[in-house]
């Protein structure tokens, strides 16, 4: 078990955002957090990342409470990728990906170790950004930028990768390549992935387990095929879906009814 949460609660002023959440996550798992807007899923992810403080309960990372980690030590274990693309900055792709090696910096000298540069090379070729290395961020398309963002996160060599709706702004081609890439990386490096997703079909294609959140409470959790059910989706999203089995992958997929024309 790499990560566990015991009775965590979070509220802003008096408004509860998360209420008594419990879970355990094992290494090399892919867990997706599903839920409607405002269900607290992004907040939950940010609590796991340690950048939002919880009001009650505790989150343990490798058996130690998350707030006990210095930021640098935490960054060696957890990388966090958000839906916002990297900002327009006057740096080359290579310079940005190298920033991912920051937590491993030993002396306080602003140069990189040989080992760091090797990992940057590995990540650049893995994410297919090696050809972009001398390009400026402002010259890249949305899909390319998100590839650079994932390269930056992977360069941290995280044991846990947190994804907050990472493909929101991408077309279906980039969405698929993005998730395929992550699954390949996971198999290679035994990474644990926790993702917040809007797209139930993508979640059920890629994740091992799902958490279902509504109004800050855990509705259900378990193996994806047991979570993505008619009752669960109706209960949490207030939508009546049509459920089908994916013809090749043997996972549930949903169709939406919509009003008749």
């Amino acid at each position, binding site marked *: 078990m790499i990560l566990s949460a015991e009775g965590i609660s979070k509220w802003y002023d008096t408004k509860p955002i998360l209420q008594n959440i419990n879970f355990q996550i094992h290494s090399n798992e892919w867990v997706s957090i599903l839920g409607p807007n405002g269900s607290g899923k992004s907040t939950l992810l940010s609590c796991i990342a340690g*950048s939002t403080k919880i009001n009650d309960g505790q989150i343990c990372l490798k058996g130690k409470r998350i707030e006990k980690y210095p930021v*640098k030590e935490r960054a060696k274990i957890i990388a*966090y990728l*958000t839906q916002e693309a990297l900002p327009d900055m*006057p740096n080359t792709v290579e*310079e940005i990906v190298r*920033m991912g090696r920051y937590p491993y910096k030993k002396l306080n*000298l602003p140069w990189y170790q040989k080992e760091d540069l090797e990992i940057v090379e590995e990540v650049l070729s893995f994410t297919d950004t090696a050809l972009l290395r001398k390009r400026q961020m402002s010259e890249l398309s949305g899909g390319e930028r998100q590839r650079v963002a994932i390269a930056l996160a992977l360069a941290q060599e995280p044991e846990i990768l947190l994804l907050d709706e990472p493909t929101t702004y991408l077309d279906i081609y980039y969405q698929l390549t993005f998730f395929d890439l992550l699954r390949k990386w996971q198999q290679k490096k035994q990474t644990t992935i926790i993702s917040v997703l809007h797209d139930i079909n993508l979640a059920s294609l890629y994740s091992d387990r799902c958490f279902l959140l509504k109004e800050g409470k855990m509705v259900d959790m378990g193996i994806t095929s047991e979570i993505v059910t008619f009752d669960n989706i109706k209960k949490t999203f207030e939508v009546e879906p049509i459920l089908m089995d994916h013809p090749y992958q043997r996972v549930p997929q949903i169709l939406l009814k919509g009003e008749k024309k």
Partner: protein
Amino acid sequence: MKRIGDMWWGVFFFLTLFLTMSIALSVGSTSISVQEVWGTLFGLVKTDPATSAIIWKIRFPRVCVAALVGGSLALAGAIYQSLLRNPLADPYILGISSGSAVGAVIAITSGWGVLLLQGWQIPIFSFLGAVLALACVLLLTRSRLQVQSLLLSGVVVNAFFAAILTFLLSMSQTELARIQFWLMGSFTLRDWDHVLFLLPVSFVGGFLLWLGSRELNIFLLGTLPATHLGVSVYRTRIILLVIASLITSIAVSVSGMIGFVGLVIPHFVRILIKTSDHRYLIPYSFLVGAIFLVGSDALTRVLFEPREIPVGVITACFGAPVFAILLHKTTQKMTGESS
């Protein structure tokens, strides 16, 4: 244009600085040839005592002060622009300038401690004023050092000290010319003591800031991503801010408020070397700032000889158009490429 290696820019800037300093040493009320300057500096030839005295006692310290002040201001400007994530930031944005101006004007008008401190009276008062202003800004901002609240506190402190300054100016009629000269910046009568005062601060401070270049690079990603990459954002920001502010205060206390250097030079360097990598940006801003101010100071001495004009006039007159042209060209290129 092919991108010149980042290292070679350093060599180029260094040679330019050397050349600018040589020329600055040769011009003035008595003209001395550049060969003679080099001969005197490196002790290669015997020059007459008068020339030697002009170079060693008058011009060389003045040129060194100009170089150190220019370097410090440009360096601090680069740090401020990155930390505040604001291209319009300069070393004076957090009220340091008005704080030190108030200090200097109090020193000039009151004459307090002039017997004890002598020539150091104005620098020490203006340094204290700058530190006071910075302390006010930090106290007002206090929690978390958010960029927005820093900038706003800067505005408030600036306004407050500007009010005091106006009050002091309106009260003193006799010293106006002297105050005016100080406010626009000047290197007249600066000697080796000033160099020794500036040198350790700008070199040690500059080196410490350079050590923070990796963090500064990461700050470009934004505060939250920087935290997730393992940077202690709050601690790093306050350390860098205080060092940059101290360097600025020292520079201003010696030379007065020289505008434009801290704002423009970092941008100029970024455009030239085509990267914002702080490992290069910091030392190169220092070198180019030094070149710019040494050159400007030389011009103040020769343009309206024998009258000397405040160096701030030159920096603005020459810096602004050059910068405007450069900016125009880069934005044109950028929009041209994207369409």
